């Protein structure tokens, strides 16, 4: 159980880092309830951080709701950090993940925080990493991070999570191909959610083939998040990964991959800025025909939304 006061201070500490007022150390110093939560239990094991990523609408939040149920049933406390995209136009957002998990809102062993991605184009809000550390300090046993998975950018999640679950849905061949592009590198577990839909078996088989080509042991599971089918198996697979101690070496490799992916994205963006289309947009900006925001939007459009001109 986590005290109400800790919930409040954790929430406010996350705001502080989210709003760029301080980093997580500063926040810890400031919000004493958090400090005491961890001070009292120095011998406490670090929280296990589970990353859940995958395309919008794959059922990630619904699955997280089920995972909360499972983790709580095992007697552990859990914090969830759920990231949703901000509108590039208005910067507003309807943060829709919480509503799937709201039935746990009365449980003091559960903390749920929605974060808008704000200026970050990728799957993670800039402050997500600090938020995860703060939740750890607040004494939660498990921290789940849900991110929007679009393109390669959500590779960032490897910088945050110990175990990464990549969620997909039954789809035609191209769906699986798209996943192959980035996510096999980072996935610890593949989940084909919406197994109630046609094509689930085929998708799972495809993934299994793909996984066999690689070196790591990546289970491929099927779930129906809506009714909980397959969730016990997912929890078991997660527990196995959590218990394994290969995490450090693996994580180091993952960081390297993220760094490379990021470099590649920067190179891509620079190259794209050199194209005539982009030059035309920049000219119009110079001539005051476009506002800065419009120009950014136009460029992003040219880059196909994968590179970021921030």
């Amino acid at each position, binding site marked *: 159980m986590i005290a109400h006061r800790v919930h409040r201070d954790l929430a406010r500490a996350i705001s502080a880092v989210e709003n760029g007022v301080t980093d997580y150390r500063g926040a810890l110093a400031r919000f004493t309830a958090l400090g005491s939560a961890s001070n009292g239990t120095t011998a406490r094991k670090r929280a296990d951080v589970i990353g859940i990523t995958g395309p919008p609408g794959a059922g990630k939040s619904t699955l997280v709701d089920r995972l909360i149920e499972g983790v709580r049933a095992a007697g552990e406390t859990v914090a969830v950090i759920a990231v949703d995209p901000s509108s590039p136009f208005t910067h507003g957002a309807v943060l*829709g993940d919480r*509503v*799937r998990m709201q039935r746990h809102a009365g449980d003091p062993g559960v903390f749920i925080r929605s974060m808008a991605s704000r200026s970050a184009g990728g799957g993670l809000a800039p402050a997500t990493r600090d938020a995860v550390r703060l939740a750890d300090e607040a004494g939660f046993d498990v921290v789940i991070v849900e991110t929007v998975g679009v393109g390669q950018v959500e590779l960032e999640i490897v910088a945050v999570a110990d175990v990464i679950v990549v969620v997909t849905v039954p789809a035609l061949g191209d769906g699986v191909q798209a996943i192959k592009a980035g996510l096999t590198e980072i996935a610890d577990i593949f989940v084909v959610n919406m197994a109630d839909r046609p094509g689930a078996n085929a998708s799972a088989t495809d993934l299994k083939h793909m996984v066999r080509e690689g070196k790591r042991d990546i289970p491929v599971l099927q779930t129906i998040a809506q009714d909980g089918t397959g969730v016990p198996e997912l929890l078991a697979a997660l527990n196995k990964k959590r218990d394994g101690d290969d995490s450090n070496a693996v994580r180091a490799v993952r960081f390297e991959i993220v760094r490379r992916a990021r470099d590649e994205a920067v190179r891509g963006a620079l190259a794209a800025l050199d194209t005539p289309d982009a030059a035309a947009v920049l000219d119009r900006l110079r001539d005051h025909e476009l506002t800065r925001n419009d120009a950014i939007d136009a460029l992003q459009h040219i880059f196909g939304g994968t590179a970021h001109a921030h």
Partner: protein
Amino acid sequence: MQTTERTIADQQREWEQLTLLPFTERRPEAREAFRTQGGATLERVYTPEHVADVDYLRDIGFPGQFPYTRGPYPTMYRAQPWTMRQIAGFGTADDTNQRFRYLIAQGQTGISTDFDMPTLMGYDSDDERSEGEVGREGVAIDSVDDMLDLYAGIDLEKISVSMTINPSAWILLAMYLVTAEERGFDRKKLSGTIQNDIIKEYVAQKEWVYPPRPAMRLVRDSITYSAEHLPRYNPVNVSGYHSREAGSTAIQEVAFTLAAGIAYVEEVVKAGIDVDDFAPRLSFFFVSQIDFLEEVAKFRAARRVWARVMKERFGAKKPESMRLRFHCQTAGVSCTAREPLNNIARTAIEALAAVCGGAQSLHTNGYDEALSIPSEPAMKIALRTQQIIAEEVGIIGTIDPLAGSYALERLTSDIEKGCFDYFAEIDKRGGTIKCIEDNFLQMELADAAYDLHRRKEAGERHIVTVTKYRDESANPHVELHHVDEAASQRQLDRLAKTKANRDSAAVQKALDEVVRVAKTDENIMPATIAAVRARATGGEIIKALRPVFGTYVETPVF
């Protein structure tokens, strides 16, 4: 419809050049486009050219004949006016019973019951979730003892009784049947309607207990049970009212409703019942909004579309299976809290649209609609509004009086087309239930509601006293319905009394039987009736079945 003379189009073009243009140059029109509430753009004038594709015999025809565009019956209001059916429901059964008797004394010809939120959602009054809500928005009904008092002194063989209840509808139907039985009425003579339209709950009204598929089974069981035992009863009232009040367009209102109708028919036919054995007892429910022409067109289109669906899609043979009968309610959302007496005018126009559209039954809103559940004086004026239309206006003398208007026929055909487009899309997506599970209908509705809101704010449609002609100086005070805070305790006492007086072992046995049946494919009605007779409460039956059927959790969409 008539012989189309090419010269009309030529003439119109000439008129636009020679007459219209110079005129608008001097005096431009007030706005570029005039749109219906549903968003359809209106032509400046309609001519025979605009209805050239409408064939009188094929598309319009005669009242009481396929495709029923002009009405379900050959005599319509010349035989008798529509049923005047004002909704009532508040406090305990006794409180509401008095309102029923008052309305009947004022000339009301049907009864309509509104339940409180706990009853609507399947919780007993003593459930912790019911706190503060017992008897507030409707009447609290926990057991058949309450139902007996609710309709006490009312001849259930003579007056038709409607009940606005959904996820727990089959239980309330059971209570109604036990009430009739204990008062010695003949089931075969019971006429009335239970809303029991679970599909639109997930889309619009948001009252649910179980997920869509088990909930459909309950609807199916009540329909098949009625088909066998209740020849004059409407076991489902497929409703577009709620979707429209939630912000849909007129086309969506009809399309979603009839798509739900299609799903019910499919479900029952799957159970092996011949379509003509139950389809005649399906009834419908639409709103009458303030956009007069569009509404009249909507009612006519709904009849035409349903007739075609029943005939062509389901191969129905009996004319009664194809003719759509509907109840109508004026639009609550069109009413304002500001200068509330103006709502009388709005309601009168809407009621007239319903009558011009051929409604079988009508509820007119009170002037206090935007403020609270209706007071007695407000209901009286609302009822009088209907009586004025029936007795004074003279419109009941001729059937479907606006037929043949070029504008009206065009709008009617456009709404029909919009419906069939939606059916094709819904079929493509795997049917109505799938579309609910996948949030397709919810998404369409949310977009329409937001669009309408923005159009309103952009000044496309003004609301008198709210967005235009706002008089800040005074907002006239009206007496409102008084919520009797003691009613909740009275209901808790009633419930405690029922529980004290019953044989709890018998209740448990009856509940176990309901659960057993629920796990099989047997019809659930007989076991439910037995449980209700033993004084099991609605909440107890609902709760017992949760482990069997599961609990619905909504995924809200924006």
